[in-house]
């Protein structure tokens, strides 16, 4: 931890970066994202189990970009998001400094996206059993039950788009939901409008979602909508052998194909 603070301090002092995006103490027990611009403030940096927000989301926000070159404190989901954003030409080497702490407490200072990719490839990207179970819970329901389950969940949606705002990969300046010529997605938060929104969101993240779970955490009404993108992420890996956020050259599952892709439903 001290190594991290020290490194952050050096970076700011040397002017190598203008801001350090990391985690700091929020009100009460909560942690929050902090944007440190003064070397001495780096003491505020913390990094522990509570720090789950995907800080990569800030890297593309104009307000943050305007602060100048950032260093970002990255845990696995953040690293993967960065790789995925690089694969989508949104980030490139040298645009940011990427720091982290290895499981054994050592400071990680990634020289390049390649280094990030190497680090990520060494991690297990398998779905942890509890997360897999969550999916199975739903999969083993009957279609009708599934339908009712999601209708129930979606019925609470108020279309606040916190899920979108929290997602590093929802970076479109004009989201499909704002397109009204034609109005693909009903902007009203009625049953159909909500279904359309969550369905489009999931499809647009298929093969891109790094399963950080921020969308669900951000949801004020507690819809487990990360299950949708997680489900598709698993399908993409199963069917096409691609995992989002693993290399900066990753091909997009829906923009590539193999003639031998398997399906069993086309007559």
């Amino acid at each position, binding site marked *: 931890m001290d190594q991290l603070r020290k490194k952050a301090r050096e970076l700011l002092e040397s002017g190598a970066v203008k801001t350090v995006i990391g985690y700091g103490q929020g009100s009460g027990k909560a942690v929050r994202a902090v944007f440190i611009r003064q070397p001495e403030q780096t003491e505020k940096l913390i990094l522990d189990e509570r720090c789950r927000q995907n800080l990569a989301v800030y890297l593309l926000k104009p307000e943050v970009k305007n602060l100048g070159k950032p260093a970002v404190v990255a845990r696995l989901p953040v690293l993967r998001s960065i790789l995925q954003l690089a694969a*989508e*030409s*949104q980030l490139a080497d040298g645009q940011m400094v990427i720091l982290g702490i290895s499981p054994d407490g050592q400071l990680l200072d990634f020289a390049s996206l390649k280094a990030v990719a190497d680090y990520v490839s060494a991690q297990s990207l398998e779905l942890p059993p509890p997360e897999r179970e969550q999916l199975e819970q739903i999969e083993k329901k009957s279609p009708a039950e599934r339908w009712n389950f999601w209708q129930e969940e979606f019925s609470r949606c108020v279309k606040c788009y916190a899920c979108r705002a929290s997602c590093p990969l929802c*970076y*479109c*300046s*004009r*989201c*499909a939901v704002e*397109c009204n*010529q*034609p109005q*693909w997605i009903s902007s009203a938060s009625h049953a159909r409008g909500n279904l359309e929104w969550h369905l489009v969101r999931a499809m*647009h993240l298929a093969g891109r979602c790094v399963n950080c779970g921020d969308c669900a955490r951000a949801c004020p009404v507690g819809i487990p909508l990360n299950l949708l993108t997680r489900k598709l992420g698993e399908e993409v890996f199963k069917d096409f052998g691609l995992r989002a956020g693993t290399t900066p050259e990753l*091909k*997009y599952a*829906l*923009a*590539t194909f193999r003639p031998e892709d398997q399906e069993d439903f086309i007559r």
Partner: protein
Amino acid sequence: MSRIGVFLCHCGENIAGTVDPGKVVEAANRIPGVVHSVDYKYMCSDPGQNLIREAMRDKRLTGVVVAACSPRMHEPTFRRVCAESGLNPFLCEMANVREHCSWVHEKSELTTAKAIDLVRIMVEKAKRNRPLFPIKVPVTKTALVLGGGIAGIQASLDIANAGYKVLLVERDPSIGGHMAQLSETFPTLDCSQCILTPRMVEVAQHPNITLHTYSELESVDGFIGNFKVKIRKKARGIDEKLCTGCGVCAQKCPLKKIPSEFNAAMGMRTAIYTPFPQAVPNKPVIDKKRCTYYLKGKCKACEKACPAEAIRFDQPDEIIEVETGAIVCTTGFEVLSTEFFPEYGYGKPKDIITGLQFERLASASGPTLGAIRRPSDGKEPETVVFIACAGSRDPAKGIEYCSKICCMYTAKHAMLYKHKVHQGNAYVFYMDIRAGGKMYEEFVRRAIEEDGVKYIRGRVSRVYEQDGKLIVKGADTLLGAQPVEIEADLVVLATAMVANSGAEELAKKIHVSYDSYHFLAEAHPKLRPVETNTAGIFLAGACQAPRDIPETVAQASAAASKVAALFSADELSREPVIAVVHRTAPPIFSICEGCFMCEQACPFQAIEREEIKTRDGKLIKVVAKVNPGVCQGCGTCVALCRAKAIDLQGFTNEQVYAEVMAV
């Protein structure tokens, strides 16, 4: 506010028979935006077309929906009608109430109801149509012809004679291809070289043709009218300008026992060689894989001997970059070698040869000066067995197709042999005799009846050597599959015509598809036989499928005329059904975020990257840009784009959405 006119065609009884025109017209009139709706017996007839013209004028229509047959049938007709009357043709749509309605359903309310739906759907689309204008693409009026066989020669000459520049690229040291190797040609038995060599010379001397022999295609970029091509001119090891083609070098070359490719290994050549006396250009090349100097660093006999001092051992390969408007691929074929056949001894028995090798034996300019002598001991064979369909039409051998020319050249071979060796016996084992063609059947009959060639209908199961003879074991299926055993001195296999070994890579280089046998694929087997699915790239000859000389020449001329047509205009115009990337005013400039997923998806590499900069050149963002010349309008990128930043002209999101909402 759009003013749509709906025109329902009865197509005689074809539509009116099952659909109630009155109801449709009435319903159409009630669709918002429709200001005019009529029906007529034959809308495509002149009076019908006039109905549309008049309505357009009188009702000031902003869009037209013709409810009739399939747009694949008459869309061009009605779009032309609109264009003639000053309405942008792309404001005209067709509702397919014939093929998709009246012809496939019984007469009933429901069928009429469907017709009405189909009309409404197209009206909703037409309302949202925008005027579109054909895309103009400049044309570089130079054609690249790949392959200098008879197909390439013919195509080059035709294009050149039409007044356009041609680049002819040939892989081998000389043009001429397989035809130059042939002895006589069926069914006329005129000498192949006698008819070919004048053409070869013509190519060499034609002011519009630039010839690159001993050269290979490196890469092709760009699109119809604007290809950028790289050609590798392999080092001949001689200075072509100085070389006089005197041939002393070859005489002095100590290596004289290299199997000659031109003579299909029936004769030998030297390491520095001119493939054959009539070669064009008549300049030698050094075979670097065999030449002692390249292998051991000494010899240089040719250099010492060359009176013109034209030998250049250190000559490098040269990469030539050219721009061409069209490409004609005439890369030809290969024949299976005898090693391919286990039952015929895996090519081990010297006296089992291919038809092509027999051509060289029979050729007056061949290694035996036309005398039929078997390779093993140079003896004149008393009995020759010809085996047709060696490999061809044999699924077990992976070659299910008919090689087409074998029946004819086998008859020719047997005939030539009988003419040269009167007392000899010629047997032909065949499956069927396929002699479709002018004077072909007659030719085969002549071989059988006048020259007494013995035709045996059956396959040969095995050929093996025994005491200097070749024992040919087969069956005569016309005599109850009775086993036949012939002691032959020479066996000639009419081995299958197969695609060039490099065909696959070539296809990928020029972005055309190929079939399961690796023959290059035409755009349509009947109606577009010399085009490919890549606009501006054409095919001719045996690179596409087995062909004989007349067909090859016909195809070559066909391809040439396609090229000439393409070059006849300074610009070519294409249907404007292509993708476009959204652009708008600052500060957004474009809702494209530049994720370039579309770039990955585009089957035609039509997506380019465009930098948006401030006036003082500061980069704001990089967005996708569609190259209108390359885009074919499939719309894959459109369905892919999350922000809906790309749209497809003619099938915009707005149009298609409206159609769905109208069903």
